[in-house]
């Protein structure tokens, strides 16, 4: 039986200079504020469809993505707002996309679950569980065949581990020694089904090992651990030593989506995990080390809120794609570059 209880809050020294530490903290705060506002705008009817919030899991995307380089490829899931933001997509373009506006990163064709950004090599937002894994294998294959120094980081949840795509992809990547990182954000639930109710083997690293793929596990609530572990995996992949599986043990503080009454978990469990919240525990460690003052934190938070307000204003002012353009972007236009 897997332990749903939270471990003690992340603690210990932060091996980063102040500037780097505050940049990562700021990114976590930016995600948190953006997600809170998204939920609010969903309630206001501005955002529709499915909306999956990343609140609670911020340390994973921020720590992992800061261990990657601009030339690397990112493949994500439908819970990808945070990854898109940290990767460098403009918050305004994300918000406008969730509003369904033409100014969104996909002109309103994708919505919350399909954020893409060619400039930062963000290959989506995939709303089929496990759907991104084969894609990541192919991106890794292309990089290898073209001798590009490019690692592909593929994010997915613990639910994806039950899909055939997971097993086929790990096998292919290991067989062909591709520079792919399989980044599993294990938040203990595939939608409303706890991992021990869906997996006969709940030690996910064992599954990777069965494909001859080394696996690392990190406390996904501890941004320092996430960053260090990802860095180790990236170094190995970049050196041509093949793929790697990384499990980030994390927790989703909010419901699966906006339609989830959370009947499958105890409130006490959620509260217990909140004591390990990645933002306040990291802030506390930085303050203890003299790398962060309360005033600095408040300024950071105010900046994030201002960015969110500007993003909302941008989305509100955005326009609707004309219905006459409905069939655009189904096929590539002739004479496209």
């Amino acid at each position, binding site marked *: 039986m897997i332990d749903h209880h939270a471990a003690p809050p992340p603690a210990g020294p932060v091996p980063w200079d102040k500037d780097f530490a505050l940049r990562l903290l700021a990114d976590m705060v930016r995600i948190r504020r953006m997600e809170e506002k998204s939920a609010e705008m969903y309630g206001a009817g501005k955002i529709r469809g499915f909306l999956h919030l990343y609140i609670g899991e911020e340390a994973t995307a921020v720590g992992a993505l800061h261990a990657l380089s601009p030339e690397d490829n990112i493949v994500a899931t439908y819970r990808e707002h945070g990854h898109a933001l940290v990767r460098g997509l403009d918050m305004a373009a994300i918000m406008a996309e969730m509003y369904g506006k033409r100014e969104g990163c*996909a002109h309103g*064709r994708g919505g919350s679950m399909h954020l893409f*950004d060619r400039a930062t090599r963000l290959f989506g937002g995939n709303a089929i569980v496990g759907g991104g894994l*084969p*894609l990541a294998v*192919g991106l*890794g294959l*292309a990089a290898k*065949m073209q001798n590009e120094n490019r690692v592909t980081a593929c994010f997915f949840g613990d639910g994806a581990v039950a899909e055939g795509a997971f097993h086929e992809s790990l096998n292919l990547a290991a067989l062909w020694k591709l520079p792919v990182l399989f980044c599993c954000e294990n938040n203990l639930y595939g939608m409303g089904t706890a991992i021990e109710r869906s997996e006969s083997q709940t030690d996910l690293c064992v599954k990777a090992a069965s494909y001859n793929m080394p696996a690392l596990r990190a406390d996904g609530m501890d941004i320092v651990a996430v960053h260090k572990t990802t860095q180790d995996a990236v170094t190995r992949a970049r050196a041509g030593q093949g793929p790697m599986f990384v499990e980030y043990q994390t927790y989703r503080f909010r419901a699966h989506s906006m339609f989830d009454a959370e009947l499958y978990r105890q409130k006490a469990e959620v509260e217990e995990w909140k004591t390990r919240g990645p933002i306040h525990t990291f802030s506390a460690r930085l303050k203890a080390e003299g790398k962060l003052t309360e005033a600095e934190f408040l300024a950071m938070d105010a900046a994030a809120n201002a960015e969110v307000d500007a993003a909302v204003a941008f989305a509100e002012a955005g326009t609707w794609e004309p219905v006459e353009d409905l069939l655009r972007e189904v096929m*590539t236009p002739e004479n496209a570059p």
Partner: protein
Amino acid sequence: MSRRLNYREAMREAMHEALVADPRVFLMGEDVGMYGGTYAFSKGFFDEFGPERIRDTPLSELGFVGAAIGAALGGMRPIVEVMTVNFSLLALDQIVNTAAAYRHMSGGQFSVPLVIRMTTGAGRQLAAQHSHSLEGWYAHIPGIRVLAPATIEDARGMLAPALADPDPVVIFEHAGLFNMEGELPDDWTVDIRSAKVRRVGTDVAIITHGGSLPKAMQAAEQLAAAGIEAEVVNLRVLRPLDTATITASVAKCHRAVVVDEGWRTGSLAAEVMARIMENVFFELDAPVARVCSEEVPIPYARHLEEAALPQPEKIVAAVKRMLG
């Protein structure tokens, strides 16, 4: 000078040409390498181009088709061979949810320049799980182009434009055609936009594709012996359908029979009939007829399989019924 070769040789030549011409092109799939291709389409390639570019895959249709999509996004020009349409069902998620939707859901940021080839069709006593003709399903999906090479010229000429296409192209090769021999004309270039009239006639338009084309041609010869001149249209491109060529032929002949190895209900034939009705209804002298597969999983026993599939005799009978 035109020359004789068979369908398999024509397709092999087309792949060889593509591999020589563009270092981004590579072939992947089950037994495409050391084995030489399930149907010997890539015989000799493994030795000539090496295991990187002639890439054998495990039996992971979902995984390697998805990987081909990723490789296409990453700058390569993969040709992925799915052994047969039957096994493509294991890869359908990647084809429909990723390849076909990718450009649109990314707001036009990414195209997927991928070619997927697969064997289709029945007629070899392979029973229910190896005899599907599901190209009509694929033709339902926006975001992909669907081709059905039915002649030597199609087999030789369709791959190059498919590889040049920035979007996913799915090519269905009917197993009944592989040993078919024919003349390859000097100009064998094929445009992957239009259907082609294979036989000119005036009395009835027989509209078909893939493995049913030779059957339609045989039927047309039998009809000619009875004084009925049939026009035979090879659709070639199943998505997007070339409505203009279809309707021009029907408007000329005033009668049409659609022949399709897919099951009757919800078939590609139904779509062709709908387009005829929408566009040239008042040109028709008789209701449009169709000859499709019977509504049964394809049986093993030869006489039952033959009875389940479109045959020249069924096409002749349909035309004669129509002409009274």
